[in-house]
């Protein structure tokens, strides 16, 4: 297996569709073959070499360098290997990710990690709306793996999320964890309005400021210290505000009872 560095020559005039450009797919190809791979540009298919300079690497990593803020579907349904984006990424980065590791060193667009099912996606910068959520028309959002956002996230983060862990070190927009089915979201910054709107199950941890809690949530009377220790210890390795969670107490709000929900907003004291 051999890796490649794909250097973006210049910002593309139209959106690029980079699905299929994954470490596993490229592993058995020569640099010349990689150059001939077709990628989407607007509504046309063009050879990859038209926008990227291809270089072989000594390791197995696939590195995308340059400004790829118009590069969509990076790591689409990727199922193994290591992919690094040295800069910004477009929409749908890590969507449908099944295994492997994707690192984005800049910001990412909308729908990052949507329907992600496994593996790890780290985004150093901020993400747009609908991260860790569902593709339009689909029932389940993120369903496994770990998403880590170093910056802020937009609205509808974790919409219809079903499983896995999603962490945000910055702030998130409105409707955090809307219609959440299950899974874990942990937030270090502030949340916008309507957190947990229509959530059915799942846990949303507010390690930083407490959010406004909708009247369709009820305060938990009993504690959940055992579960909290298990969860807090799992989040601790991510560092930052999450590192000390296990030694801090919690209040829980249960709901969304307007949707018959049994989810919980965990407000760390």
């Amino acid at each position, binding site marked *: 297996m051999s890796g490649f560095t794909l250097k973006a020559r210049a910002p593309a005039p139209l959106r690029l569709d980079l699905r299929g450009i994954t470490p596993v797919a490229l592993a058995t190809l020569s640099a010349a073959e990689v150059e001939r791979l077709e990628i989407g540009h607007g509504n046309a298919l063009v050879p990859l070499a038209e926008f990227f300079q291809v270089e072989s690497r000594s390791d197995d990593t696939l590195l995308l360098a340059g400004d790829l803020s118009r590069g969509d579907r990076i790591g689409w349904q990727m199922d193994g290997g290591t992919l690094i984006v040295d800069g910004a990424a477009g929409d749908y980065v890590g969507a449908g990710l099944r295994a492997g590791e994707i690192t984005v060193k800049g910001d990412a667009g909308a729908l990052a990690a949507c329907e992600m099912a496994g593996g790890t996606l780290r985004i150093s910068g901020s993400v747009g709306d609908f991260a860790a959520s569902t593709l339009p028309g689909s029932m389940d959002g993120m369903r496994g793996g770990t998403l880590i956002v170093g910056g802020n996230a937009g609205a509808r983060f974790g919409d219809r999320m079903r*499983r896995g862990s999603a962490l945000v070190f910055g702030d998130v927009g409105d409707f955090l964890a809307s219609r959440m089915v*299950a899974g874990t979201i942990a937030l270090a910054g502030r949340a916008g309005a309507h957190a947990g709107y229509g959530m059915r199950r799942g846990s949303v941890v507010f390690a930083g400021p407490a959010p406004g809690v909708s009247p369709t949530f009820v305060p938990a009377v009993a504690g*959940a210290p055992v*579960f909290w*220790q298990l969860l807090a*210890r799992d989040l601790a390795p991510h560092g930052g505000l999450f590192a000390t969670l296990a030694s801090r107490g919690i209040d829980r709000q249960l709901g969304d009872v307007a949707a018959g929900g049994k989810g919980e907003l965990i407000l760390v004291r």
Partner: protein
Amino acid sequence: MNRNGVVIDETFAEAFPMKATRLVITAHNIEWARHAAVAATGFATSVIACGCEAGIEREIPPGETPDGRPGIAVLIFSMSGKELAKQIERRVGQCVLTCPTTAVYAGIDEGEAVALGKNLRFFGDGWQISKMIAGKRYWRVPVMDGEFVAQETTAVVKGVGGGNLLLLARDTDAALAAAEAAVAAMKKLPNVIMPFPGGVVRSGSKVGSKYPALGASTNDAFCPTLVGLVPKTELTSETRCVMEIVIDGLTEADVGAAMRVGMEAGIALGAAGGLLRISAGNYGGKLGPFHFHLHKLMAGSAA
């Protein structure tokens, strides 16, 4: 072989394969963890009629348990994976789920998974909640003191059951002293349990009986009561009391190590303490594939 006046018989203990698992029971404090562990491992001395052999392996300090609370590790052994699964479900359901503040986790990761909280979750009547944390599924079942947290499955591994020592002593006091010392030494080792009351069994058995319905009956060759009456006895007239220690362990090496430290503890008491001989129970080598030769075990001993 004679050590400190104690004769070590040239014989072997015969052990057989079992299926085993370890459960870690935690609670608000060690007392309640122990209550649950004692109840869950109760009536589990012998697979002959208990369904499993179980015991407390060790106490686990708060820093080493998954939830940071004091815990107790128990080992459960059974003759088949199916029977073991049944015993786990019944014992955890009736003795751990019911015990105030407890939680239960798998104590072994590698092996075939069997249900732990997987079926007990239905006690939650629809209010139970599953959580995946670090790749493991847990169930949170609402109960009157808050939540019962149980890992979904525990792993079943191959174990070794039926390792044993026979301690032949001058009288009851000496036999008990030797047995207690041996059990205390064995309890310091990991991966083994001594399932009988206090770790000691006084009704050692042989295979079969004059009654066709019985699979096991008194080990008459080692009964001081029957010296002179039975056609073949292993005892001499100065041996008035015999105790047996049965050891179940996760591996052959674990059982062997426990037998060795048990023998060393008995030898330390010596003939002066009233221990005359150490022997072991076997079935002529036909029953089990694991043979623990006492002389070979002592060859690796410093005593």
